[in-house]
């Protein structure tokens, strides 16, 4: 199939959805489904760029800070659990247990202890995204090539250098996969914690609009959240591919040789 027909076919469904929604909402006058142009106008009024500094940037800062803390804590913890056998056997099951708690379930207890300030949000995000990073790192330790490990030992590489150059490097695809899941968890927790208990933020405004039956603002907020969710993932995938280009390159050269 040519590229042109692929693009044409790919546009069919989105265009059909947008056109049918526009036609239907223009006539139906349903309070839940306002016309498209009204939603877009509200989107521009709210998010370009009136509330960006007060409600969007603080949320994103919490997201970035929380995820950063999770990565800083998760990689060493995962490395310890993955490399030191008795530690892994002792705390692996505990970690499995905590990882099985749905992340959103962590919000009510942490809100009770920490309240609804920004620091509480950062903690919630950090705790929820810690588990995927830690588990992926522990798992990634198993990816190290035994020959390289032996070589490192023969060359008397120090433990720290062996860790960084052999284990973490071999585990980096797994670790980045874990950070990607962590980012998804962090985004969910950012939005959910704002929906549940906050005084500002996109999640808060969108949920507040829903409660007060302001469907136009609700739609505009949903649109922004969807855009942010998509963009966050796309940016991460781009960074990951760049960081891992050595790994992909190695796999390709291996496959072709």
């Amino acid at each position, binding site marked *: *199939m040519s590229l042109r*027909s692929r693009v044409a*076919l*790919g*546009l069919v*469904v*989105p265009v059909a959805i947008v056109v049918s929604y526009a036609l239907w909402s223009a006539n139906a006058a349903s309070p*839940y489904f306002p016309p498209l142009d009204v939603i877009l106008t509200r989107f521009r009024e709210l998010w370009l760029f009136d509330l960006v500094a007060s409600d969007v940037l603080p949320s994103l800062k919490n997201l970035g800070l929380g995820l950063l803390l999770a990565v800083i804590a998760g990689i060493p913890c995962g490395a310890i*659990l993955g490399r030191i056998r008795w530690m*892994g*056997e*002792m*705390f*692996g*099951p*505990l*970690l*499995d*247990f905590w*990882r*099985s*708690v*749905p*992340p*959103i*379930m962590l*919000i*009510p*207890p942490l809100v*009770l*202890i*920490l309240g609804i300030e920004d620091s509480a949000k950062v903690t919630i995000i950090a705790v929820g995204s810690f588990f*995927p990073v830690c*588990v*992926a790192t*522990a798992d990634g330790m198993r990816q190290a090539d035994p020959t390289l490990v032996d070589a490192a030992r023969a060359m008397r590489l120090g433990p720290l250098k062996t860790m960084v150059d052999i284990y973490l490097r071999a585990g980096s695809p797994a670790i980045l*996969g*874990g950070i*990607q*899941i962590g980012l*998804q968890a962090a*985004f*969910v927790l950012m*939005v*959910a914690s704002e*929906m*549940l208990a906050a005084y500002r933020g996109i999640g808060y405004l969108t*949920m507040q*609009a*829903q409660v007060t*039956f302001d*469907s136009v603002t*609700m*739609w505009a*907020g949903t649109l922004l*959240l969807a855009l942010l*969710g*998509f963009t966050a*993932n*796309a940016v991460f995938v781009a960074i990951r591919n760049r960081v891992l280009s050595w790994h992909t390159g190695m796999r390709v050269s291996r496959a072709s040789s």
Partner: protein
Amino acid sequence: MSEATSTLLWRPTGGVKLRQVGLAAAGFVVWLGLWQWMTTTGPMADTDGLPTASQTLSSTLELAGSSQLWSSLGTTLWLVAIALAFAVVAGIAAGVAMGFSPVVSALLDPISQVLRPIPAVVWLPLLLMVLGPAPELGIAMGFLGGVWAVLVQAQVGVRDIDPVILETSRAMCLPRRLTLSTIVLPSAVPYFATGIRISAAFILMLVIGAGILGGAPGLGQLILVAQQTGDPARVFGLVLWSGLLGLTFNSILTAGEALLRQHRGGR
């Protein structure tokens, strides 16, 4: 959505040994001991909203005897089952069609690429407005979060079929319907199983999430009420129950998937 979302870290090799069970138990004891010390004499004593480990454990046991917990767990699992059924049917139908036909793939792949990375929680206010705090809210959220894993795995499963087999079936003039039912679907079954396992974990999370954020019935609603009435021991007890539920749920699904793969020649 990688593998790491629901497989377990703890994978004892060569049978479970006493040493491993002992160490695992010791891990839990260390955690509870540390918690108890922190909240009674340690630096976090008398923190508002933070129960001690013993308070939490007694509330966890107390919950085991309450019919409210069991009926909430039942509701949650029932909603998960319905959402999973929808996600599996829709995901497999769309995924197989996309893997099988380049036209369907060109038609649906772009929109799936755009919608898949968007966390389902984003749609909650919209669904809450339309559906209200009803069981349907949990089902819809679960479906939106879970359908993608099945779809992607079904797509990959169909594309991974040995092309020689497909060409043989074409050479023997097997009708498309028969090719689908005797070759494509059976060989993609292990992929469906993986998709269902990953999807079910997402759905459980979102059904509970719909309860916490939107008041849909089930475990999530129970913890929301406990939080609003300010009962920390009960909130923490429910968190422990949700961990237990998630762990059991994932273990059963992982075991089921392994069994199916083994049965089908260990692919």
